[in-house]
């Protein structure tokens, strides 16, 4: 409650104010998303691309897709990595601030669905902080946790590929974050109905 009071005084960017104002209502939309990052440290590593797809009424809306590649020239250069990836990617490219802004606009107040979502959200929060925004407000679900819950497994972790193989989802050769997001969306629907969530 007090957080919210603090927010009022701060001078956020416009898009963030917009974003915050949408949380008055609960959304019936889910957004399955996937990030590609250079590593696992939210502080040091950077996001290379984001893929996301919307789900409404248990249907994956193909038209409702978000995909962006962030050519992190500086980071890659500093760390002596080649940036073929950034160049080769078919996804539209945007610089980091613009990419994040668009992504925030895309997700709205939807419930986020991902694989190891906690880390992805942390990564995004780090980026948002750089832009002088607060933390993400969206509810977030993790298909790995859902899967473990369904099968009552707690001592084992499942990579996205393993989950996809378990549900016999088609995998394409070049996997982009968009493809991952699509697979996450399908698995989410399966898990959702199997777990009997509403």
């Amino acid at each position, binding site marked *: 409650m007090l957080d919210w009071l603090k927010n009022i005084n701060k001078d956020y960017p416009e898009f963030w104010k917009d974003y915050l104002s949408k949380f008055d209502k609960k959304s019936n939309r889910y957004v399955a998303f996937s990030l590609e990052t250079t590593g696992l440290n939210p502080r040091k590593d950077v996001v290379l691309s984001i893929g996301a797809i919307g789900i409404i009424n248990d249907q*994956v809306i*193909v038209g409702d*897709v978000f*995909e962006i590649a962030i050519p992190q020239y500086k980071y890659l250069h500093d760390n002596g990595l080649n940036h073929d990836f950034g160049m080769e990617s078919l996804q539209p490219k945007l610089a980091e601030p613009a990419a994040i802004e668009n992504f925030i606009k895309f997700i709205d107040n939807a419930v986020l669905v991902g694989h190891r979502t906690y880390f992805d959200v942390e990564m995004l929060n780090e980026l948002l902080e750089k832009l002088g925004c607060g933390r993400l407000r969206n509810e977030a679900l993790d298909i790995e946790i859902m899967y473990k819950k369904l099968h009552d497994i707690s001592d084992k972790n499942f990579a996205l590929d393993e989950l996809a193989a378990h*549900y016999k989802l088609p995998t394409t050769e070049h996997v982009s974050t968009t*493809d991952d997001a699509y697979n996450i969306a*399908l698995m989410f*629907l*399966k898990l959702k*109905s199997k777990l009997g969530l509403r």
Partner: protein
Amino acid sequence: MSNAIAQRIADFLKDYEPFNFLAYDDLVKIAITVRVHNLEKNKTLFQINDALHDSFYVVSSGIVNLMVVSDADEMLLNKCHTGDIFGLRPFFAKNNYQMTAKAKDDCIVYAIPIATFKPYVSQNQEVLDFLLESFATNSKNQADKQAKGLLSDTVAFNENQSDMLYFQTLSYNRNPLKVSATTTIRDVAQLMTDNLLDSALITDQACPIGIVTDKDFRAKVATGRIPVLSLIPTLMNAPVITVTENISVAEAQLVMLKHGVTHLCVTLDGTDKSEVKGIISEHDLVVAQANNPGVLLKEIKKSNSAKELKIVRDKLYEIIQSSLNRTIPLTHINSIAGEITLAIVKRAVELAILDLGSPPARYAWLCIGSQGRKEQLLLTDQDSILIFEDVPADKYRNTKDYFIRLAKKATGTLEKVGYKMCSQNHMASNMLWCKSLTDWVKQYNNWMNTPGEKSNEISSVFFDYEMAIGEQKLEDALTDVIFKNAKNNVLFFDYLGNDALRKPPALTFFKKFNVEEEGTFKGKFDIKNRGILPLVDAARLLVISNSIKGINSTYHRYKHLAIIDPKHAEIYVNCAEAFLELSKFRTLEGLKNDDDGQYIDLEEMSKVDKEKLKHALQPMRELEELIKDNYQLTQFS
């Protein structure tokens, strides 16, 4: 904005009708509007009388069943596989859905909004044609299914297809043999023989005054009651039972039953005072019920390609399914299916012969294993052997070469029909199982007199066989060898007995099902190896040791054993019934999953069925004791 998912879906769609008629860019545009549904097993997408959706559907993975519900019974109309479209009704009609679409297993389907697709339909004749055809075609029509690739329809059937046929008008002979009353009996008989007809109408100025059929010649002429040279009116039946044109199958059948006749005369106004239009025989009625085994046999004989044979096989599948639904005894279904399968094999061999030229020696093509026992309801793998008569040594190589090529062609055809190649290669196309009679005799002698020795372990499938085509004498010769060797052959029965009892037990000590513990079929019950095969193997052992020839089916074997061995009759009868019950379970499972039904999913079974299944597994234990008592099973255990 580019959209990787839309492209992915467009890539998928472009391989299937009607989307392959459209440009790729258009497909991407369509794909962007697609919504992806995930359907859990048994989830209903839409059902009868639901308001129309704003989209139609394409199956991306899994199988969707389309069905109608009549009398609280779900009847399957069509199965939609990957790439099939369904739910086209909103395109063409305004009323509610006329059928139910239900996921058979976990499915992913693409919903394509009608609004986005409609422009492409109106611009593109091919697409429109395809949709119309899909919408209108009767899904039961296997031939069309074949021709058009994959069809799904939205037409409703309130009646079972075969019942509908029942009320169709039937086709009959419109050019009956008409003779005048001044013809002699002998001349009429000659005319009927020449025209291959079983009846003749006696007419007076085109009106029927009497009828003679084969029966009359047998009953009245051949017995000497009426001299063969007298005039036909002395023989004929009058008055003739007449009916109008366009009579339905059901009606014709009723009229025949009512009057106790086998032929009906069709006249212009349905009385015997008008012109003759044709004649309906009992045979026409049989033929009119299209999915009729007799007709299928005829079709097989006319088939000229694996494709045509496959259509017949698909129809057989329907017969089996509907027969099971109508609780027709499984033994009947078995023998019908057996005959048809045999005919298919025969035709496959004939086709190969047509291709390769006539064989250089006499031969016999034997189906072995389940088909040899005529217990093959599902598309299981094919097993066969080929025997050719002994030829001089200098011709041996060419002869063998010919038969192997023949067998390769025939088994190839059968594979296309849907019978998988045998995993152990027990097929005539294998060098080992295509040889001369002498070699076969040697082979069987080896198997039976020194079982278990040498590396070539005998496979018991070789002891159930049924000739599909060829020289009967060769099969008889083989049978003689087997029974000659079987006499007092303790070692051989020891081997067979052990083979039969070695199968893993079906129930655990606590009367629970022994399910698969690992692998793809984990948690399922292997009804083939744990239930059916022990019974089959035991029956074979008992039959050979009792020198019972010519009875191939397991059910009849037990029935026969019960007669010759009254002391244990009860056990045998129980086994016979158990075998039928187990086969039925397997067949139903196989039909449900489109496979050979080897593994049963216990979780899907009702409690009653489970008890039934358990009950059916009991008799084997008693039989086991019987076998252990009768044969000394020491050598190989």
